[in-house]
């Protein structure tokens, strides 16, 4: 593997601690999966020799051969359809769709086929497929390379949806997704690919089943606080942590809840946090209307209405197509827009 083994050490139960980028952490999780389970397969456009356009699959074809890690023809519907067929034959596919916007051509296979095969077959055909999807904006890429599709996929019965925010979660949540017998849309925040952090690597396969403790669907308090909860996922978690630092300078103590799983959503974790802080601001990159913020806001209202001191605020992208590069910083929830929403909820 390519990452420098900086700061390598041993964690609690003998698991290795290695500092690496998110992109390397994902690579490492794929490596672990390919090693521990001969049924896993990695495929997609340019994932082989090139190692993916973000180098996330770097070295995997050389290590595991062309049968396990292979380039497909350029066709996203084909890639996911193939995964469905392979899964029916007992394989555990980990297809990559090169960019968020190119998941749209695969929507039939994802929604009509992959998501409901287990249901239609009354459990006879499970779909242990993890679709890796470099997602969200923030890298000033051309059109169709900055989309946030979580609401679309979270809406589909039969799918699980997850979006890690840092290297350690990227590693653990990917292994969890791959080991899940259900289809998972694994959304990688490309803007955080180069974020470097310590990662707790899996020890033996035996202890791997619990993937470090948290079950599928668990959220994580990225920063505890008392005055309001910022709810976010993917790259927006990092931004909310920054907002919390700035607010702290003014004596405002913000909690940051990293939702991680966008389906299933950790309703208990969400309710517990907001009932403590009594205020919530949901932040996402996707457009406002029918975005996941609406779902989060609804869940909060349903669960802890009487604890709320102010209406739930949403800070999101606008209801317009994702804009070209230079306007991206304006479109994405800015630190100031988030701070203003915090102010609105505190002053309500």
């Amino acid at each position: 593997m390519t990452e420098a083994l900086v700061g390598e050490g041993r964690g609690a139960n003998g698991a290795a601690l290695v500092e690496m980028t998110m992109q390397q952490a994902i690579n490492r999780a794929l490596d672990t999966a390919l090693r521990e389970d001969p049924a896993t397969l990695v495929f997609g456009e340019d994932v082989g020799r090139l190692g993916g356009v973000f180098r996330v699959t770097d070295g995997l074809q050389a290590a595991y051969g062309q049968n396990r890690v292979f380039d497909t023809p350029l066709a996203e519907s084909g890639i996911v359809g193939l995964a469905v067929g392979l899964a029916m034959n007992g394989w555990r596919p980990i297809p990559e769709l090169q960019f968020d916007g190119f998941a749209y051509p695969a929507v039939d296979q994802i929604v009509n086929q992959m998501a409901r095969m287990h249901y239609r077959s009354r459990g006879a055909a499970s779909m242990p497929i993890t679709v890796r999807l470099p997602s969200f904006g923030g890298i000033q890429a051309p059109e169709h390379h900055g989309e946030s599709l979580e609401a679309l996929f979270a809406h589909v019965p039969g799918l699980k949806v997850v979006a890690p925010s840092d290297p350690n979660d990227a590693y653990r949540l990917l292994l969890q997704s791959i080991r899940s017998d259900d289809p998972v849309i694994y959304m990688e925040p490309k803007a955080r690919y180069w974020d470097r952090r310590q990662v707790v690597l899996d020890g033996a396969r035996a202890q791997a089943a619990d993937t470090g403790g948290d079950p599928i669907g668990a959220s994580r308090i990225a920063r505890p606080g008392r005055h309001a909860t910022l709810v976010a996922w993917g790259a927006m978690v990092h931004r909310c942590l920054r907002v919390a630092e700035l607010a702290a300078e003014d004596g405002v103590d913000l909690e940051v809840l990293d939702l991680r799983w966008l389906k299933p959503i950790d309703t208990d974790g969400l309710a517990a946090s907001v009932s403590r802080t009594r205020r919530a601001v949901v932040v996402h990159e996707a457009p406002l209307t029918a975005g996941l913020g609406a779902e989060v806001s609804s869940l909060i209202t349903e669960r802890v209405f009487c604890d709320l001191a102010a209406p739930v605020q949403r800070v999101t992208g606008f209801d317009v197509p994702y804009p070209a590069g230079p306007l991206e910083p304006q479109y994405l929830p800015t630190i100031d827009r988030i701070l203003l929403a915090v102010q609105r909820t505190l002053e309500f």
Partner: protein
Amino acid sequence: MSNNTAQKQPELVQLLTPEGELRRHPDYPIDISAEEMRGLYRDLVLVRRVDTEAVALQRQGELGLWASLLGQEAAQIGSGRALRPGDMAFPSYREHGVAWCRGIRPRQLLSMFRGVSNGGWDPHEYGFHLYSIVIASQTLHATGYAMGVQRDGALGADGTAVICYFGDGATSQGDTSEAFNFAAVNNAPVVFFCQNNQWAISEPPERQARVPLYRRAAGFGFPGVRIDGNDVLASLAVTRAALQHAREGQGPMLIEAFTYRMGAHTTNDDPSRYRVSAELEEWRSKDPIERVRTHLTNEGIADDAFFAEVDAEAESIGERVRRECRELPDPDPLDIFHEVYAEPNGHIDRQRADFADYLASFEDADAEGVR
């Protein structure tokens, strides 16, 4: 190995050899004046210059990205010059040479790659649709447009034809097969122009297909032909014939222009990770511009003064592209709310007004801007 690989390389229409010699072809006679020949040379040199400049501008941070056409100039200029003003072209994202032939200014292309806009021109004005980033999506648009032409009764010797550009990788998309079939079934006046530049990012054609791409057409019931994509005359003559075939109501045709992507996929790409330089060397000897220059020289159609003039023009265009790129106005943040819908939309207007207030609050506070 299958029979396919054992077969010899397929015939390829070539009218101008890499050595600059004219070749006759029974199906594609070409009658070209010295003036036109010089014009093609000028086009080739100038688009290459624009392209080189754009790559440099990206390196200097002036463009977010650039997809170079280096090596594909002949395929694009030949076919682009075969189009008539009323024809319609549907490009992918690398067709800067075709754009040039349609009258699109380089700065209009740069505005998209700089991220100043998602388009940059009115497709109707130029008979050149917006660039398509979602691979192969435009093949169906071209087919639909062509079926509109049919319904307008605009066929005949002076009728309208449609051309669609896409890459070797794009042939794997369902959209392409659907477009081939829809066009065939409806006898639509569309020419499918596939630039097989031997790479789809890091994947060679063997990863996309087991038969030469031009043969795909036969399965759908229309003619397909492979041309030397580095031969501007073959591209011109064969595209002209295919457009005429379409114009006159005889249905679609597929042209596979066999060429080579001399540069990286885009400025983000590092081709040294997946291809060997020997391949590049081999294709360098088939350069699309060199052979035209040799021909012009050998036939005495152009002299040193002409070449010097073209070079000078290229320099000044390079300089102009550089200047115009730097002068492109920064987009107004409030622009993102415009033209989302054709009809007035109160919801978007409110979001726009709120955002305008938000931006104005910084001006009042004299803050350093958006964080």
